[in-house]
């Protein structure tokens, strides 16, 4: 008997014992679409890519929603027909990649999706747990979600992934600093700035780390770099509490 469980997203998933959904593989969406069944890369046509990407990023969904997202500019019945055709073609080639029940579609439970790893890693970091090596690797991977794809849902999810990643890395840096692993923390903070140079919160973390090591010169240099960058790109000054943070440390150092 198939056991149904409610996952964190609040939807039903089949147990991994279910032979129908036991296909193992990976779906990478960060940096570009790449599907592997087992360890073998598989080429699939554009429509199928969009279907798999949608299910991979957003989880299982009602058919109507999937049809509407993939074919937004046609009437519903036409979209559903296009979806049926796409599913039929997919099933001929890769029979167990997408499962369905009643009216919902789901990606096979055995396919690891990198955006899911990203979310899992971010969650663990948020809970104060160091992420697994796999999750860490995904967090630090540079690629944005499906570059060059312009569908609305991709644009939104791309931004979400970006924010999720940046916040997770900042929190990780803070956690590492809290455990005394300052050098590792600085490494991670620099990673964030590399991804998003205008992110003041990341610069702040780095500055605080330098100050934690009593490296006031380094902290000031970082602050100067931030100041120039912000002035050039947006025309603003760094926030006042950053100014105050440095003023306080500079003053106490000089007076000691």
């Amino acid at each position: 008997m198939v056991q149904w469980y409610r996952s964190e997203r609040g939807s039903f998933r089949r147990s991994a014992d279910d032979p129908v959904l036991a296909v193992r593989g990976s779906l990478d969406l960060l940096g570009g679409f790449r599907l592997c069944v087992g360890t073998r890369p598989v080429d699939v046509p554009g429509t199928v890519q969009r279907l798999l990407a949608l299910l991979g990023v957003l989880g299982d969904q009602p058919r109507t929603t999937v049809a509407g997202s993939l074919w937004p500019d046609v009437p519903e019945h036409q979209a559903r027909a296009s979806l049926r055709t796409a599913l039929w073609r997919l099933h001929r080639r890769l029979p167990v990649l997408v499962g369905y029940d009643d009216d919902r579609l789901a990606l096979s439970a055995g396919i690891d999706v990198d955006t899911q790893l990203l979310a899992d890693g971010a969650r663990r970091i948020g809970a104060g747990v160091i992420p697994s090596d796999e999750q860490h690797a995904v967090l630090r991977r540079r690629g944005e979600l499906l570059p060059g794809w312009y569908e609305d849902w991709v644009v939104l999810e791309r931004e979400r992934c970006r924010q999720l990643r940046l916040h997770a890395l900042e929190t990780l840096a803070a956690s590492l600093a809290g455990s005394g692993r300052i050098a590792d923390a600085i490494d991670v903070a620099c990673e964030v700035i590399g991804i998003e140079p205008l992110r003041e919160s990341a610069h702040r973390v780095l500055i605080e780390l330098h100050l934690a090591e009593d490296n006031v010169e380094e902290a000031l240099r970082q602050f100067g770099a931030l100041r120039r960058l912000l002035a050039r790109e947006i025309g603003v000054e760094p926030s006042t509490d950053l100014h105050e943070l440095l003023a306080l440390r500079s003053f106490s150092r000089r007076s000691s």
Partner: protein
Amino acid sequence: MSAAELEDAMPVGDDGPVLHVLGGPCVSVGARRVGVPEGSKRLVAFVALHRRPVERRHAAGALWPIGDDCRAAGNLRSSLWRLRGAGIDILDADKWSLWVREEVSVDIRALSDWAGRLVGGAASDLDLRVEPGWEDALDLLPGWYEEWVLLERERLRQRMLHALETLSHRLVAERRFGEAVEAAMLAVGAEPLRESAQRTLLEAHLAEGNRGEGWRGLRTYRELLRRELGVEPSPELQALLGEPAVRGRGAHRPVHGYRARVLSC
């Protein structure tokens, strides 16, 4: 589902049966899922959408508006009978009304309650997270076009969006900025032209000290508004970011001599 996700999955409802209107309607008892017979789905959904018992006549009239009352009443009885015949004991009825049995939890009610607690200011610390299933709640019973569904769909959608915005504000107050941004982004994602959602997102970025992110967001919103509606964001929204190159410069303390030299580079 990754191994990690399998870890997170839990068997459903140890207590009693759960009526899932989202992604359904269907019923789960423990880990076992029971489909609702096709001919009874509308009835189940209708009764589930009302918190209080519904009048049989009202339900019959709404679900079978064409034809006479007798016919409608007969259809209602058949629909109930089919439900019982399938062994699905989630509705109770007397001569006058129908209701969902007390021991049955209804998913949209839990969501609606969560949203209500947030919006009403009665949210506990446990409520300060995005309730699972909220996405499905944005588009209740997709593909159903009857008026009673349309009304409830819109109501629930608005409630969810409002709840997400309130959640973001509460999370900012708790200095949980990452989660605050996430909650606001969910609202913006669902309704990109909704100014209150965009404002909430902007406020979350600013609370974290990230004006760069704030400007990015405002730029995207401005382009979208121009393209879709041919209007500009409200002046209040733009005011949140303040005037560039003016704000901030006058706000920091006078620099000490040594620092002033370094910072003037």
